[in-house]
């Protein structure tokens, strides 16, 4: 059983809250974990003689507040003193920290709380049981007569109290029970409270350490360039001028990249600019966005692999009044605020990595592979993440940095320029959705949905890609919340040439909810019904979603008059085990520009561990989605990504963001996922708001202002 060894060297006291210790100065070293901590009943809980509780975080903190939420769950069942709780990053260790829902040590798919809810509660309760047992034995009383509160075991009968620290020696000898009793939710005193985040104080004063802030002694700085044409190789390099730049130490040339190492990033950047590189463009030199779309559209004519088949869709769609429509989603970059980076030190017998990653075990393996070492020779230090959004579910940056570091004497921090970060992203797939439906008496009688696009899972987790169906690719489509008697959902895999695709906040549901909710609005209009009423009429089997829809309709003022050229749009979704209904209100002008006026959302995410974090995640997710809907698109020309930085890959700014009201519905159900839900819901809600304001049914994202302008004038 791994145990924590190294002493914390930096702590931050918070008033009335736990303590966070994170950063490279408290390294989490796999080999060191064999050393003993007084009480370590499982992979998540450590208690020392002073009663300090250290909780090991199996999921990474990238802004979603998960360190706080996980700590709350553990501390709740442990009955720890919240003021004495510290958290620490987990090391790469799939055996102990694999995400139960994914089978790998990864943070993604908005499932941290869903997946770890039970295991963490058990871990906390098991540790508590050991401590109670230890006290009961010492006091010679039955454990059942003892209770716990805030880091203390209490026996009310004899009035004895023992704090956890004093019990750790004894407790360490006790095997935790396999199935400890869990608290009844009515007894929760931490879960459900809007507790302050543990990781944020250091983020207000520059003390927080992200991967990019790693500064091992003697570190050098590097930046790299990969072939402008995706998949191209280095043909020839002339480094004469680069070497003359003051501060440049080394030029590293690999088959697919060049990097310049210097005393600081500036020297490295200048050196890279002075490097004369001829590239061998390779097979993708002619790939353009048009070709990608053409292939996708062509592929969409094929029947897909069937993910869901209910009723008799063949018969139900054999009519002349079938309504058919297509919807499309572009390639997208992640543009995490913290550009890609990794700091690596490779020696002949070891490698050390400093990085903020969503997949620490994959980073561990990738670096070992790049350095030609055994995994046991590699140490990974986890850092905070300056945004993940799925980009840091890939270990490519660690792999590339390790290959560079292998050529360098001493540690080297490899930082991607924003341009490299955007031009060599692993992109959100392009999707083409074909939908067919038939209305019968104002209700949907039949529905067929064919998703054509890239399968991220087939690359990322091949066993999950079964029988031609990418479960993520049909997520929220095969479990469409609406009551439809004849239903078929198909997946049609078609990879864009030259482009590697990956997870991106919301991935499959993003696409599917956009297509479904857009189509539903068009069907409602055909049926002559109000979009909310039409949805409501089809939600009989999704009562939780109906509640959310009713709430959002009320809170958004649905149906109340609006100024000219304004519209409200609604979307509902069952995604990530949360039920979300969102209304966006916007205004368009004659040039097709869209101004956001207001966003209202209602969510039933089961039991809310930290309600304030849920609201924050929805607000942030909604901005993320609206950004994509208004601006997001990566295009290729001659195999090159044409966007490069925030001037041509635009982000929503504060002045464009309207009030966003989040209504969290009280629920006793198990917690659902939340990080991606806002992103997924915002896009169709905005699209439908534009539809309501102008009558223009946009069918691909990002929005096309010229179409809106034409509609706004007519």
């Amino acid at each position, binding site marked *: 059983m791994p145990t924590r060894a190294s002493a914390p060297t930096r702590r931050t006291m918070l008033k009335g809250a736990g303590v966070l210790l994170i950063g490279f100065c408290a390294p989490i070293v796999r080999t060191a974990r064999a050393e003993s901590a007084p009480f370590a009943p499982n992979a998540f809980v450590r208690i020392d003689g002073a009663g300090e509780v250290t909780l090991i975080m199996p999921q990474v903190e*990238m*802004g*979603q507040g998960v360190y706080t939420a996980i700590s709350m769950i553990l501390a709740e069942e442990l009955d720890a003193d919240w003021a004495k709780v510290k958290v620490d990053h987990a090391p790469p260790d799939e055996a102990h920290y694999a995400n139960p829902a994914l089978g790998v040590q990864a943070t993604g798919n908005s499932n941290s709380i869903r997946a770890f809810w039970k295991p963490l509660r058990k871990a906390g309760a098991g540790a508590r049981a050991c401590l109670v047992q230890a006290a009961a034995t010492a006091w010679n009383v039955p454990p059942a007569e003892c209770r716990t509160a805030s880091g203390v075991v209490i026996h009310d009968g004899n009035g004895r109290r023992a704090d956890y620290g004093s019990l750790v020696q004894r407790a360490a000898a006790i095997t935790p029970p396999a199935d400890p009793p869990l608290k009844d939710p009515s007894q929760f005193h931490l879960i459900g409270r*809007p507790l*302050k*985040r543990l*990781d*944020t*104080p250091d*983020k*207000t*004063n*520059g*003390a*927080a350490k*992200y991967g*990019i*802030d790693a*500064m091992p002694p003697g570190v050098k*700085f590097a930046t790299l360039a990969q072939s402008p044409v995706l998949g191209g190789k280095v043909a020839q390099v002339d480094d004469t001028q680069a070497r003359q730049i003051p*501060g440049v130490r080394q030029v590293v040339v690999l088959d697919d990249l060049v990097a310049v190492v210097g*005393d*600081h*990033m*500036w020297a490295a950047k200048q050196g890279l600019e002075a490097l004369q590189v001829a590239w061998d463009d390779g097979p993708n030199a002619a790939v353009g966005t048009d070709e990608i779309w053409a292939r996708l559209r062509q592929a969409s004519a094929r029947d897909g692999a069937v993910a869901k088949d209910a009723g008799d869709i063949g018969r139900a769609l054999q009519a002349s009044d079938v309504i058919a429509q297509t919807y499309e989603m572009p390639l997208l970059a992640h*543009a*995490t*605020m*913290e*550009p890609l980076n990794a700091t690596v030190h490779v020696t002949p017998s070891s490698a050390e990595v400093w990085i903020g990653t969503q997949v620490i075990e994959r980073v561990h393996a990738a670096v070992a592979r790049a350095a030609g070492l055994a995994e046991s020779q590699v140490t990974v230090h986890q850092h*905070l*993440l*300056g*945004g*993940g*959004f799925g980009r840091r579910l890939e270990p490519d940056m660690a792999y590339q940095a390790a290959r560079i570091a292998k050529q360098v004497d001493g540690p080297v921090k490899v*930082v991607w*320029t*924003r341009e490299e970060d955007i031009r060599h992203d692993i992109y959100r797939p392009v999707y083409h959705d074909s939908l067919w439906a038939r209305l019968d008496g104002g209700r949907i009688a039949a529905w067929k949905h064919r998703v054509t696009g890239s399968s991220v899972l087939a690359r990322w987790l091949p066993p999950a890609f079964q029988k031609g169906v990418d479960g993520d690719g049909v997520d929220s489509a095969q479990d469409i919340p609406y009551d439809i008697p004849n239903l078929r959902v198909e997946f049609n895999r078609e990879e864009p040439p030259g482009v590697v695709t990956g997870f991106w906040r919301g991935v499959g549901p993003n696409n599917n909810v956009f297509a479904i909710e857009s189509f539903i609005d068009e069907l409602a209009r055909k049926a002559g019904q109000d979009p909310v009423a039409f949805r409501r009429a089809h939600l009989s089997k999704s009562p939780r979603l109906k509640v959310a829809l009713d709430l959002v309709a009320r809170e958004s003022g649905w149906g109340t008059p609006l100024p000219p050229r304004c519209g409200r749009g609604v979307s509902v979704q069952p995604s990530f085990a949360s039920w979300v209904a969102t209304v966006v209100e916007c205004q368009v002008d004659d040039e097709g520009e869209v101004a956001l006026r207001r966003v209202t959302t209602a969510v039933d995410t089961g039991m809310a561990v930290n309600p*304030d*974090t849920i609201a*924050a*995640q929805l*607000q*942030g*997710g*909604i*901005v*993320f989605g609206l*950004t994509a809907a208004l601006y997001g698109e990566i295009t290729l020309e001659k195999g090159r990504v044409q966007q490069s*930085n*925030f*001037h041509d890959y635009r*982000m*929503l*700014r*504060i*002045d464009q*963001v309207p*009030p966003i009201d989040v209504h969290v519905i009280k629920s006793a159900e198990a917690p659902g996922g939340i990080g991606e839900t806002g992103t997924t819901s915002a896009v169709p809600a905005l699209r439908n708001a534009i539809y309501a304001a102008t009558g223009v049914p946009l069918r691909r994202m990002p929005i096309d202002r010229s179409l809106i302008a034409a509609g706004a004038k007519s």
Partner: protein
Amino acid sequence: MITLIVNGQSRAVDVPPDMPLLWVLRDVLGLTGTKFGCGIAQCGACTVHLDGKPVRSCLLRVGALGTRAVTTIEAVGASPNGAKLQQAWLDLEVIQCGYCQSGQLMSATALLDTVPQPSDADIDAAMAGNICRCGTYVRIRQAIKNAAARV
């Protein structure tokens, strides 16, 4: 050798004069609170104060500083508005990943130093240059107002 004043201390650095202040702070002085986001003055992550004015350090050549004093996120809490804003940020749980927040706080502090009771339009004007990819804008706006309301 170039001498600059950072957070009240005089620091001598041996770097080329055209090196942007951002890299001097991060890579030479080890003040990593100031962040790199874009390198082209489009995101605001690298914002510091130059004699109290907000400026993007990613394009500011260190040789052009002259005697102007630099303040970074590590020291902004020493100013009354900086401290008020830091507290307001925590009280309202503004922060998500936090990577942009050094820059947000520097811009917000400069705003309150110029306009103690900012309107929404003032907040737009002062903060639109700071991108937050996590989308914390709604709370940033509210936290600035809360801080301004505190005496």
